[in-house]
């Protein structure tokens, strides 16, 4: 009896410890980013460090006034949104087909989907840019979103594939027997169940597009994305600006994930209303 209690207590400690560690793993760097973005440049390079920022807005102010940040942010949002929509619109049906239908070359298809990630972008960028310039897709959000969709698609297909596979086909069949068409059954039964997973792959697509630099810096010139616009420059900028720029880059993605978090949580059965 008492053995059992100690065991349970230890288990709780272990769970608590792991949760704490995982939180620190994620929040630690974000906190440092926050701390240093809101500190004066001398505090960033200085020593000893403080736990609270000095709420000096010089570094962040610089970015707000940095010419082109606003339009680059807007371009990034456009490209990431387009990527998200395209990869779900194309990826989810493919995932559904993979899980529900038998067809020739199915396993080959599953491997081929992954192949799009096998070629390094710097290798593809040159011919792609040449083609885009000729076709007129060059320097447009849609053009870049197409490239990012290619990058995000394998994940979208494979995530939705395992999602649909996890939903018993009997549920759908039950709906059919009750008079639903295939499309209705999908919309009324399957879709609500897979929503969290779709959100997860949407977030994935969003983040992949948000973080991608090389294609963005070759395929956009007048309409750069925020990452292409800032990242290469931040690399070689003074430390306080690196932190502030990192903060500027991370913040929109964090806000987005925060907005869609309920759909994500529902995946693990945590109701959040």
């Amino acid at each position, binding site marked *: 009896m008492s053995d059992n209690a100690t065991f349970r207590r230890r288990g709780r400690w272990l769970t608590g410890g792991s949760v704490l560690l995982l939180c620190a793993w994620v929040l630690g760097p974000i906190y440092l980013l926050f701390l240093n973005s809101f500190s004066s440049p001398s505090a960033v390079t200085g020593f000893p460090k403080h736990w609270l920022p000095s709420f000096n807005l010089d570094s962040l102010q*610089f970015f707000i006034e940095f010419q082109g940040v606003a339009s680059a942010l807007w371009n990034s949002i456009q490209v990431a949104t387009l990527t998200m929509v395209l990869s779900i619109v194309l990826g989810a049906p493919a995932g559904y087909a993979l899980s529900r239908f038998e067809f020739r070359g199915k396993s080959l298809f599953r491997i081929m989907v992954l192949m799009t990630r096998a070629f390094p972008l710097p290798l593809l960028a*040159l011919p792609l840019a040449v083609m885009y310039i000729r076709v007129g897709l060059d*320097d447009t*959000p849609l053009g870049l979103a197409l490239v990012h969709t290619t990058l995000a698609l394998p994940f979208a297909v494979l995530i939705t594939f395992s999602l649909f596979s996890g939903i018993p086909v009997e549920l759908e069949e039950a709906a059919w027997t009750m008079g639903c068409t295939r499309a209705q059954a999908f919309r009324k039964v399957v879709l609500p169940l897979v929503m969290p997973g779709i959100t997860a792959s949407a977030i994935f697509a969003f983040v992949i597009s948000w973080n991608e630099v090389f294609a963005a*810096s070759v395929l956009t010139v007048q309409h750069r994305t925020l990452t292409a616009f800032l990242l290469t420059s931040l690399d070689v900028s003074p430390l306080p600006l690196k932190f502030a720029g990192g903060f500027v880059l991370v913040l929109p993605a964090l806000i987005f994930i925060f907005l869609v978090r309920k759909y994500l949580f529902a995946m693990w059965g945590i109701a959040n209303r």
Partner: protein
Amino acid sequence: MKTTFRGLCTALGAVLVLAGAQAKADVLFWSTQAKPVEETQAMRSEVLKGFDGKVNYQANDPGPWLTRVQAEMKAGKGSIQVLGGLHGDFTSLSDGLMDLSKIDLGGVKVNPSFMKLGKLGSKEQKYIPWMQATYIMVANKKALPYLPTGADINALTYDQLIAWAKNLDEKTGSPKFGLPAGPKGLLHRFLQGYLYPSYTGSMVTKFRSPEAVTAWQKLKDLWKYTNPASTGYAFMQEPLLSGAVWVAFDHTARLADALNKRPNDFVAFPAPAGPAGRGFMPVIAGLAIPKTAPDKAAAEKLIKYMLQPSTQIATLRATSFFPVIDVNLPNDMPPSVKASGAAIAKMSGAKDALPALLPMGLGDLGGKFNQVYIDTFQRIILGGQPIKRVLDDEAGTLRALMKKADAPCWAPDAPSKGACPVN
């Protein structure tokens, strides 16, 4: 939950509809220079402000920069008007660049030896020199009392530098000398343009000579008193500001922040000299127009503007790169410009000055060329392998590289017929 979902969908739709809108194109200035955000900002708001017309200044990593230019050249049409880059950035683009020999620069006198470099070995003027810089040394004033006796900071030798670093290490308790040996650092320029010429009077030909063995032995001695965090440093201004390093070598633009933020705490001085002279490496950036530029008249106008004395001075303020034309500098320049300008003048004007040019004619093998020096450094200094054996080994790689590029020697090596030999 439903309303948030609907809200999200509406926002999504709005983004997609608005995505169609496009802005009007400006003169696109596609550059590898002034990349740090503060410099980009200064280029846009200070340097290009006076130009008659709107300029879109974009600073890039050399990789995307080159890929984009190549793509436009291959597609036969493009949006880039003016290219800005280092001498080495242009070498592989030569055929796609417009001949600028007839460009009207409004009577400014550009340094003739730089103009000659701008031909890239052809008969046409492929680029117009834009600005120049070099590598110098900076020390925290706290380090000055530890200078070895009899040493003049403006005429140091490598032996004195080693003695200084040793003094600092032993008397302050930790190594205070620093080199930019990180992945993004420019250590290879120190090896190619400073250490090698100073000891061997050569960068390529005498790569494995007995003098080179001495040079590496000296660097090994120096490394004993070098802050081991150097293998992570990219811009020496940062460890200088944080106090981790008191004496450092780097590119003027990568030291400027320290000299500007705390001008009273730091001194700039020439690089040290070895038995063969005071090796140093001038860096030249240029401006070019790709044959695919949509509006060549506007591009030429922008280049002319960039070379006017007032623009050149504004560029110096913005980027810490010095003018390439004859111009008198005003007195109110930032501290970094005054300090490094004086150090450069002392270095290039020294009796034993030995300028070593950036690698030339290597095209896209430039990266591999640098890698030979970095590899040699890592094997000898970090790996502790025998100097002679490593040099013999890497000399083979270097020789093959020079043959493949078919690049003739550049200063300080004597001109060669055909590929520069590695003896």
